[in-house]
């Protein structure tokens, strides 16, 4: 694990810097000092009105992709060698998912930390802020990242690295334009309450499970003709 994270550390530091710049920009764009709105905005959970806000979401997904890509490609290109050592392809998929889960969790935690850090620096008041809501946003952001990462693995199995990059960019652009209208079916953490929030979580988890099964099948079938 230590070896794998050697390269990730550098990427995480770069991601932290970019995330901080993005959060500062979101603060200025929204003209408000509310850490909750900023965090939601980062994950595309608020209505993205301007092109800059939409670009913020695109940049977020690009960052996520760049963090994941090395390890996914290593597992895909080395499936034979890893399968033999793990004794099955299923174990390689599980191993890949474990690492992606860890990377994505680190990534959303970093975004949360930088949001809190920037709001602290900009003298935002933390009085009245619901920390449970911050955790809710981060966890739903984590769910969003996992869905996108799953799609990234799937696209990398069926097509090239460049195509995967562009397919996910197109998907993000579509999401940034339409997500506000599709309400509980959005994979982005929209501000929902009660039954709507519950239904949205169900939709996201169902999508994640569905994509995981589909991706796992594609991975196992990949070399076995």
């Amino acid at each position, binding site marked *: 694990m230590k070896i794998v994270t*050697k*390269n990730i550390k550098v990427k995480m530091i770069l991601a932290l810097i970019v995330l901080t710049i993005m959060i500062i920009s979101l603060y200025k764009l929204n003209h408000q000092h509310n850490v909750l709105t900023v965090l939601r905005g980062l994950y595309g959970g608020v209505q993205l009105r301007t092109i800059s806000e939409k670009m913020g979401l695109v940049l977020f997904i690009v960052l996520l992709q760049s963090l994941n890509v*090395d390890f996914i490609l*290593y597992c895909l290109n080395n499936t034979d060698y890893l*399968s033999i050592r793990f004794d*099955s392809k299923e174990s390689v998929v599980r191993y890949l998912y474990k690492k992606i889960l860890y990377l994505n969790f680190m990534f959303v935690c970093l975004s949360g930390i930088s949001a809190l850090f920037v709001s602290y620096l900009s003298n935002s008041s933390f009085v009245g802020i619901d920390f449970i809501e911050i955790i809710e946003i981060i966890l739903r952001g984590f769910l969003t990242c996992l869905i996108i990462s799953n799609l990234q693995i799937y696209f990398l199995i069926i097509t090239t690295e460049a195509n995967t990059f562009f397919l996910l960019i197109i998907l993000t652009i579509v999401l940034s334009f339409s997500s506000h209208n599709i309400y509980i079916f959005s994979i982005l953490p929209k501000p929902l309450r009660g039954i709507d929030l519950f239904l949205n979580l169900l939709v996201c988890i169902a999508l994640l499970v569905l994509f995981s099964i589909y991706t796992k099948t594609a991975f196992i079938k990949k070399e*076995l003709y």
Partner: protein
Amino acid sequence: MNIEVRNFTKIIRKGTVLEDINLDFESGYIYGLTGQNGSGKTMLLRAIAGLIRPTSGEVIVDGLMLHKDISFPPNMGILIEKPTFMNYLTGYENLKFLAEIRNIVSYEKIEKYMQMFGLDPHSKKPVKKYSLGMKQKLGIIQAIMEDQQILILDEAFNALDESSVSTLRKLLQQYKNEGKLIILTSHNKEDIEVMCDYNYHISNGKILS
């Protein structure tokens, strides 16, 4: 150990890449496969290694059928096509990473193998700066470092310098004497003639001799 390939046929997109292959392999021997590019050598190695499923036929390892009783032959090392390494890690770190999956080989042994093939285990040079020959050496080391009892080596001598070719030949002879089962392919007829106890020629997916 004993590997039996029985009536193995593989059809991919209406093209027959392996046709009714029947072969037996036993421990303590080195087997060579020769044939032109695209003749089916690598595909046959992949079939023996359990990396492709047969359209018909079977591969049996010590009485256990591949893809039914077991997924892969046990305790096997392969070098089939080039393995991918993590470019930002050193050669030693890459081997360590692979070794940690099974956790049956000591770091000292990895270092010893690297030194045998003229690689410096303490070098900080990342794999992305390695030459083709150096990457080939890493590929060979990952195939043999865990004392595997079955070795399947596809064009293992490619891109190696003279001293590494000699090292590999000596090692393979030693492994044969220790009772390991070795199957290798090479474009160089000398490698096959010098090293192998049995040589099979493959053409258009069929064993000719």
